[in-house]
């Protein structure tokens, strides 16, 4: 069958369309999903394109089902993913927690909207806590916070490889702005860039008769005693901590001599970067540290950079969800920290620059 993308080309499209193309390019076999704004168009594009490339789709009865059917698709050995937002993300926590416990390499694309509850369909960064630490688990998840359409494309493809290589549920954390806005990017066939898609293997349904030709797969997520569970969770944590250094990603902007260090993630990084430029032009030594992976968090790297600053400014379109991750990482550091919270609202570079200038 013909490849969905050959070579590389510059396109101008919405973020939701980008995700659909990335999944196609990544050889994803099947998508399960349920309507919720602002990510619906991922399904709209997938349902139109997928049949032309022999891929599957099922619209489920709700997000609980979308998450569990995705687990099923992955258990069967196929590249499967789903996408959601807000209240739908809440419902995904049950299945994603099962994936955490059972090491099922699911991929979930989250386009954050306002919260709590139904709130708005528009935008926020208010699903950080839930996406990183939702469910009744220990947050053994891989979470990429994208800020541009190029990243949305790159990291959606990457998430399938990271998930299948390291066997932890993987998330692409976007937002409603990224979902609905149109900007340019380069889409490509991963093979063009030397990216080889990590092989998938079935958990169930392998060849041969169980008990005769091979051992049966007996998969569970229930344990009987405290001691048993402790051993299981310890192993999971150890496995996660072992691979974390290979997965952690972050970016720094003019942090070498920064006195004011802006901490932000996702699309807010664009405002932060622009603010740093503006401030530097005015002689203010501003810098910006951006975690790209919120899980695993670039703790060591942030500590080193933050220790050199005179003041930290945590910026997010939420009421401190990102700050909690930051504080967890920076425990013990005495650098003064301020916050700029705008739950459910976009943040511009002008207001950040004003905020910092006003504070000086």
């Amino acid at each position: 069958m013909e490849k969905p993308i050959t070579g590389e080309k510059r396109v101008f499209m919405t973020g939701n369309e980008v995700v659909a193309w990335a999944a196609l390019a990544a050889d994803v076999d099947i998508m399960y999903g349920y309507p919720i704004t602002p990510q619906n168009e991922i399904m709209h594009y997938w349902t139109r394109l997928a049949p032309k490339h022999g891929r599957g789709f099922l619209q489920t009865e709700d997000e609980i089902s979308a998450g569990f059917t995705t687990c099923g698709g992955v258990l069967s050995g196929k590249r499967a993913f789903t996408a959601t937002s807000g209240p739908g993300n809440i419902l995904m926590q049950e299945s994603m927690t099962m994936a955490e416990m059972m090491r099922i390499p699911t991929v979930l694309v989250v386009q954050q909207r306002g919260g709590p509850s139904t709130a708005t369909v528009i935008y926020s960064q208010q699903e950080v806590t839930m996406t990183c630490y939702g469910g009744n688990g220990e947050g053994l998840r891989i979470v990429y916070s994208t800020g541009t359409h190029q990243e949305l494309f790159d990291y959606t493809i990457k998430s399938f490889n990271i998930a299948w290589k390291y066997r932890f549920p993987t998330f692409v954390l976007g937002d409603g702005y990224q979902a609905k806005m149109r900007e340019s990017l380069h889409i490509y066939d991963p093979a063009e860039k030397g990216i080889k898609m990590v092989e998938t293997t079935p958990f169930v349904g392998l060849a041969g008769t169980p008990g005769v030709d091979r051992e049966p797969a007996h998969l569970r997520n229930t344990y009987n005693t405290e001691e048993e569970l402790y051993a299981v969770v310890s192993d999971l944590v150890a496995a996660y901590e072992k691979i974390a250094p290979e997965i952690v990603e972050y970016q720094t902007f003019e942090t070498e001599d920064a006195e004011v260090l802006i901490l932000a993630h996702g699309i807010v990084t664009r405002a932060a970067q622009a603010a740093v430029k503006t401030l530097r032009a005015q002689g203010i030594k501003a810098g910006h540290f951006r975690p790209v992976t919120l899980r695993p968090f670039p703790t060591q790297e942030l500590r080193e950079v933050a220790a050199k600053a005179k003041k930290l400014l945590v910026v997010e379109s939420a009421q401190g969800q990102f700050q909690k991750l930051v504080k967890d990482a920076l425990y013990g550091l005495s650098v003064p920290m301020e916050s700029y919270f705008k739950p459910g609202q976009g943040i511009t570079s002008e207001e950040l620059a004003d905020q910092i200038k006003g504070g000086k």
Partner: protein
Amino acid sequence: MAKLTKLALAGEGGQGVQSVAGIIVEAANDEGREALYIPNFGVEQRGGVSVAYCQISDEKIGSPKFIYADLVIALSDRAVRRTKQYVNKDTVFIYDSSIEDIEKDLPTNAKKVLSIPALETAKKELTPRVFNVIIMGAAIAATGVIDMDGAKKALEKRLGYKFEQDPKLRELNFKALERGAELVKSML
């Protein structure tokens, strides 16, 4: 044009605001410039003011939303009231002259406030259906984000299939673009 240009276009649903915004940014993108466009959206499927936020630059664009626009075009009374918040001393504010009783709601802090007879021109000289194309002409003349050729190319790309069926439409739309630009140029 190296600097970043920010446009906010607003009107009632059905006035073609999002179409115009989409064509402008695509034209800019096709010319190799950086462009970012995001529509506003709430829960209702219909009704409510439709706002399009466009940014065009030669460098990568920052946040999708902005506080103040370089150009605001408002096509209804609700749109005028809705977009006042994007106006500062550097903003050119254009509204359609057909909007009644709007004087007290107009911004008082803009660089310039222009009333253009886009709807009237459409009705009298062309056809009401190209009202939004006149607005597009006004927008590109007021900002210079793309030139007239680029605009015509973008229109052709979008509506070419309709033009093929009825070549008179091409003339009509191109004329609308030019008239919109003229309306603004005569005032700026």
